[in-house]
């Protein structure tokens, strides 16, 4: 059953007004800058602050205190209980809901198995790496079989090298989870890779809502355009060759198989007036559609197969004398492309 939430929180001058609809199995990302009200919205849904009205089918959660709401929360810094083992952390919610110890431990062990941490069952949280702690936190949140899973910046505490792996693991678990998921993040990449739908919050209000592809293609405000300044495609990978769903092919550095997200930064795209000599593998003809000036760079919107955004320096704009309608060659290094299996 679809979850309908209506969040109204006023705090001083700040007002948060947000209406959300989440289908079963759907992952909605709440994306926005710091102070946009994302975490407040999550806390309201969990019942940690007043102002979150939630209805799932016939039942409403309006009067329910936190401990009675069927939610699971993965907090930003995971907040694992330091004096308990990983197993006790995961079993905590089940024990709190009255499950006998043996059954709760068995279920918790099952969850640790699902997140691949069975051998860390007896480990204390401080001995776990950031990525492992995140997986324990996820298992803890999911163990109580919540109707609504809330994730507060689940990847923000991780360093860049582990984030990639943890992100794709998280994506896998979210796809297996049949309930409703709300992911709060300020990282557009998290939102695009993990979510089915993105809701962009600015100053307590929704400024745009849509699938990742829609938001990227038609950013409605400057802020959104800047925020989602990424080239994102869906495609089918066969080794290092990826056929993109909307046409075109790219060659990536690491071989992958199956359906993937292909992501690269606009700064990774080089533009040349002539086809470059030595022909790097990812080279294709493009036509300038739009030019947008940002603080330090210029974003060029290009039509082609695939269509692409490129960030270039202002000096390059002058060199190339760019104007809409110009025909150029886009070049992209394989090592600059990230892929995430869908």
């Amino acid at each position, binding site marked *: 059953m679809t979850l309908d939430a209506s969040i109204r929180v006023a705090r001083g001058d700040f007002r948060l007004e947000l209406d959300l609809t989440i289908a079963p199995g759907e992952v909605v990302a709440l994306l926005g800058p710091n102070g946009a009200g994302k975490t407040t919205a999550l806390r309201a849904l969990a019942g940690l602050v007043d102002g979150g009205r939630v209805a799932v089918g016939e039942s409403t959660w309006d009067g329910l205190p936190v401990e009675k709401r069927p939610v699971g*929360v993965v907090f930003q810094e995971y*907040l694992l209980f330091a004096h308990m083992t990983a197993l006790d952390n995961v079993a905590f919610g089940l024990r709190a809901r009255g499950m006998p110890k043996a059954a709760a431990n068995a279920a918790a062990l099952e969850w640790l198995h699902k997140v691949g941490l069975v051998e860390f069952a007896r480990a204390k949280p401080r001995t776990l790496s950031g990525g492992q702690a995140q997986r324990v936190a996820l298992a803890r949140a999911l163990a109580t079989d919540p109707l609504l899973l809330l994730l507060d910046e689940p990847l923000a505490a991780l360093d860049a090298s582990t984030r990639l792996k943890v992100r794709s693991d998280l994506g896998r678990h979210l796809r297996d989870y049949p309930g409703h998921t709300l992911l709060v993040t300020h990282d557009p990449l998290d939102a695009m890779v993990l979510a089915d739908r993105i809701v962009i919050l600015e100053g307590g209000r929704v400024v745009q809502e849509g699938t990742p592809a829609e938001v990227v293609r038609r950013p409605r405000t400057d802020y959104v355009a800047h925020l989602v300044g990424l080239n994102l495609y869906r495609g089918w990978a066969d080794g290092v060759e990826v056929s993109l769903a909307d046409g075109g092919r790219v060659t990536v550095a690491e071989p992958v198989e199956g359906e993937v997200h292909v992501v690269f930064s606009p700064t990774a795209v080089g533009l040349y007036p002539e086809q470059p000599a030595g022909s790097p593998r990812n080279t294709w003809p493009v036509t300038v559609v739009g030019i947008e000036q940002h603080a330090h760079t210029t974003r060029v919107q290009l039509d082609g197969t695939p269509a692409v955004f490129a960030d270039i320096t202002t000096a390059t704009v002058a060199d190339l004398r760019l104007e809409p309608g110009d025909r150029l060659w886009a070049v992209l290094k394989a090592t600059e492309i990230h892929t995430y299996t869908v």
Partner: protein
Amino acid sequence: MTGVRRARLPVVLVLPAVVGLVFLLLPLVGLLVRAPWATLPQRLFSAEVGDALLLSLVCASLATVVCVVLGVPLAWLLARSDLPGRGVLRALVTVPLVLPPVVGGVALLLVLGRRGLVGQYLDAWFGVSLPFTTAGVVLAEAFVAMPFLVISVEGALRAADPRFEEAAATLGASRWLTFRRVTLPSVLPGLVAGTVLCWSRALGEFGATITFAGNYPGETTTMPLAVYLALESDPDAAIVLSVVLLVVSVGVLAGLRDRWIRGAA
């Protein structure tokens, strides 16, 4: 620091510091120097010392139990609730800390004495009279020692991150379960330190005890009272009793420091 020569320490600071150190340590040294070491073992195991020591340990421990049972919830209320007038309450709780213990003893007599505000009903309805009994000793000690526990535990509670309690709540834990399983373990070092401080304060209690519970050997004569009594009749006995209290106190301090160090590591 290597290679850097610091200027000489200023005499204005060093001189009073040394005097202060001597002032604090010399009496303890004097106690050890004058102790009748030859007769110490036989005095130590005399019935008089044994009774007083046992009574002291039992009363201080019971007073500590009272303090923990009542003081930890009180500390939680002061640290976590949104009670109106919490600041005033916190100040009031610490009054026994600065109050002369004798005054505390008088106050206890006025309330719990046989003609006291509450005591008259205890006597009339239940036939219970607390002053000048062993239970009175426990009460007097608890009255004086509880603020130490409350302040220590409340400080630990306020330093503990309340978001862990929120996390427990989202997992379905009631406030009581959260308190037992999440909050209490996280403030355990503060609780242990507070308990030890509370116990040692109760062990050394004199003023409130002698005022409220009197001085009946075997019933209300704790170690500090015994020391004071013995000083008039048998100074050597007073020294022996004092040495015993010194050893117990230093032992407690050593245990506490060990706990603190481990807590910080």
